[in-house]
């Protein structure tokens, strides 16, 4: 049963996790070679100019002072100014988060029907050829890394067949549908990669639910097979699947560096990567913090959904 106490304890641990992440990132930024002034002025700049800039940016202050300044500003939503883009960080992070979310949305749009559908079919036909085929296909696609399938799909669907544009970034002023269309090709490698896993999770849930007592009871009550499956099997079978999906969504919002790079989508993963390359600490800190927040939140959401759906964890009105 969900109580206020467990929820507040969760929230507290969530905040603690995020604070620890912020401190760790900050620390990592400090031990990287090179300093802020040098980063901004480049390797050939005059040492005097670098020192002057460091002073101006407060980069010559003790680490704790710098961390406190960053942390207190971040609490107010001000993530500072990007060193490389010379503009406030927040809009950049928001925009790239939006692009990552669009990509994740397209992935889920294909992934959920395909993965869950295949899983249900496999589970209901346990041991038959269709089941074996689905499991085998899922495993096969699952072991191909996304940068390999991404490149292959790019060559086949984009270059040879010309079905899709080969960049994920739609041109200026593209509408909703066009932008979505541009994201289909980048989404496919992930769909292929994750569908098998999702199908196996669903299949296991279905098989478990089919063998459960409540299913037998429902069947004995004389309900027809379809009612049994829709009312009793699926709600129980899908609980672990939904938890997995929630966690995967966290990964999709920032973990897709390879795909974003390959298809030129300026998402969160790409933002963090290029910020790291340019040693753009404010951008890196903000990007990683947002990523970590999403990870933690989506994991928490997964737990919550599971708790809500799990018959053992909710009060159920008697039928």
């Amino acid at each position, binding site marked *: 049963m969900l109580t206020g106490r467990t929820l507040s304890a969760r929230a507290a641990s969530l905040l603690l996790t995020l604070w620890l992440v912020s401190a760790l990132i900050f620390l990592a930024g400090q031990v990287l070679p090179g300093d802020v002034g040098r980063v901004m002025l480049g390797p050939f700049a005059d040492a005097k100019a670098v020192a002057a800039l460091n002073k101006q940016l407060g980069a010559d202050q003790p680490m704790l002072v710098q961390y406190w300044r960053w942390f207190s500003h971040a609490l107010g939503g001000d993530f500072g100014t990007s060193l490389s883009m010379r503009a406030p960080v927040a809009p950049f992070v928001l925009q790239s988060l939006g692009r990552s979310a669009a990509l994740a949305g397209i992935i889920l749009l294909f992934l959920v029907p395909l993965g869950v559908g295949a899983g249900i079919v496999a589970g209901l036909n346990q041991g038959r050829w269709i089941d074996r085929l689905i499991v085998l296909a899922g495993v096969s696609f699952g072991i191909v890394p996304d940068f390999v399938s991404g490149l292959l799909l790019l060559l086949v669907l984009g270059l040879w067949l010309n079905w899709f544009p080969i960049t994920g970034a739609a041109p200026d002023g593209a509408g909703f549908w066009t932008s979505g269309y541009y994201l289909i090709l980048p989404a496919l490698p992930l769909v292929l990669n994750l569908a098998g896993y999702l199908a196996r999770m669903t299949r296991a849930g279905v098989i478990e639910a089919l063998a459960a007592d409540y299913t037998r009871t429902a069947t004995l009550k004389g309900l027809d097979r379809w009612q049994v499956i829709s009312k009793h099997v699926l709600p129980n079978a899908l609980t672990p699947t939904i938890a997995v999906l929630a966690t995967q969504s966290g990964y999709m919002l920032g973990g897709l560096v390879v795909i974003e*790079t390959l298809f*030129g989508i300026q998402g969160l993963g790409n933002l963090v990567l290029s910020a790291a*390359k340019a040693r753009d600490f404010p951008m890196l800190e903000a990007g990683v913090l947002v990523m970590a927040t999403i990870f933690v939140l989506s994991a928490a959401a997964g737990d919550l959904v599971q708790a809500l759906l799990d018959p053992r964890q909710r009060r159920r009105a008697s039928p």
Partner: protein
Amino acid sequence: MTKRNEIDSLRNMSGDIWNVAVDEYAKGYLKRRDLLKYAALIGLTGFAASQGLGFSGAARAATAGGTVRVGLGQPTKAIDPVTVTDPASIGVLSQVGEYLILDDPKDGLQPKLALSWEADETAKRWTFKLRPGVKFHDGRTVTAKDVVASFERLVDPNSGSSALSAYKGILSKGGAKIVDDETVAFDLDQSNSNFPFYVSSDVYNAVILPADYAGDFEKTFNGTGPFKLESFRPKQGATFVRNADYWGDKALPDRVEIKFFDDEQAQVVALQAGQLDVIPSTTRLELAIEGNPNFKLLSVQASSHDAVHLRTDQAPFTDKRVRRALALTLDREAIVKGLLKGRAIAGNDTPFAPIFPSADPSVPQRKQDIAEAKRLLAEAGVPNGFEVTLTTERAYDIPDYAVIIQNFAKKAGIDIKLNVLPQDAYYGSATFGSSPWLDSNLGITDFGHRGTPDIFLNATLKSTGAWNAAHFKNPDYDALLVDYGKARDLQAQRVAAGKIQTLLLDETPEIISYFSQYSRITSTKVEGVRFTAISHLLLDRVSFVQA
């Protein structure tokens, strides 16, 4: 016209200095292109035009219109002419920004915002006449005030300018002066007969900006160039449209669409899918399009090179015989053919690339000679060779080059261990004492193209040079460098250069075994793409082949 007549008419154009060059051209020592470069250098502007030199590929009347679609890498930071360092940003800047002079790889110095220039007797004061009536995209007229402010900004150590190292010892704050609205003078720190190159596109930061420029370039892209900004999306790309008020020939294309790519593979796929017309090139990409009739590989010879420095103040390289021995192990022709696929020319262990007219071509080329290398090592007291660590950066073809050097050195018993670092770790803070580049015993560093050897000669080999990774401190060399800077004509320059080249071959503080070409890949549908070896991309003469 016949060559004979041509030479007589050339002679009538200027004084003795010019005639030395003309004589050389007549005798066939000086290539026509170098003659043109030289003409431009001594201010014989309009000479190239009088020679009926059109642009390459302008044989047919080019048609106007169309959109040129360009793929570039991802700019590393906000685009600003003052701080720019990366090739992608230079490619974007070339659409809107212009220089006093363009150093064209084919035709040498071309007057742009400057009409003509001349030096005084000492080559310490240079005066530039500006082109009248040139307008910035915001409608304001370019005056001497803007030009002086542009250079003062670049030599100000607190502006974040990345041109400081280029102007070090040449031009300091207060050196650029307004003479009148259309004339600018530069008082240099020391004589320099190559100064026009320093205000040309070779110093890619030297874009002429309004005097009141405040560092917010990405908002307006306000320059004087043939295209002006339509839209810019950071990290995504930019579009430019023809500037109808351009001072020169109006751009042929209606628009230029630039897209930034994080990944070179994606770039070449986009080109193959017909979604791009022009992309930068790398050795790997060249393999991808080789033999494909839909694409062209365009190259210009450059002075870019990967210098191998040998620390002259540390064992084992304190003895110049040991340094020479290592240089003698390399088979340069094999490196050019194998590593660089023939898109390079052999170097002779000095920064004087064959493309520089001032280089002395009579200095003999160093060739592989293992027997001589072994003899020198024995003479230096290390007959069985020695062990040494080669430190370098993981960038371009350099790691492969390091392995090649390692293999050649083995032939003379020199055992090289490799230490390959990420590029930024290798550069470190770029100051002595905290930079593997400047501190390592033996290292390889990439140097981009320059229009003159000056910056290589000064920064990497002079006793006080900021990039002197070889820690080479040789008073004779420093003195010869001063002579070279003072030389007012090609012959005197070449005499001074010959002395420097001979001294460097004898001392071998660094090994330069090749000078690479710079390439771009274009679709065969476009004609007239021009570029410089330092990533400028000139698209105003581009036209589309009518199928």
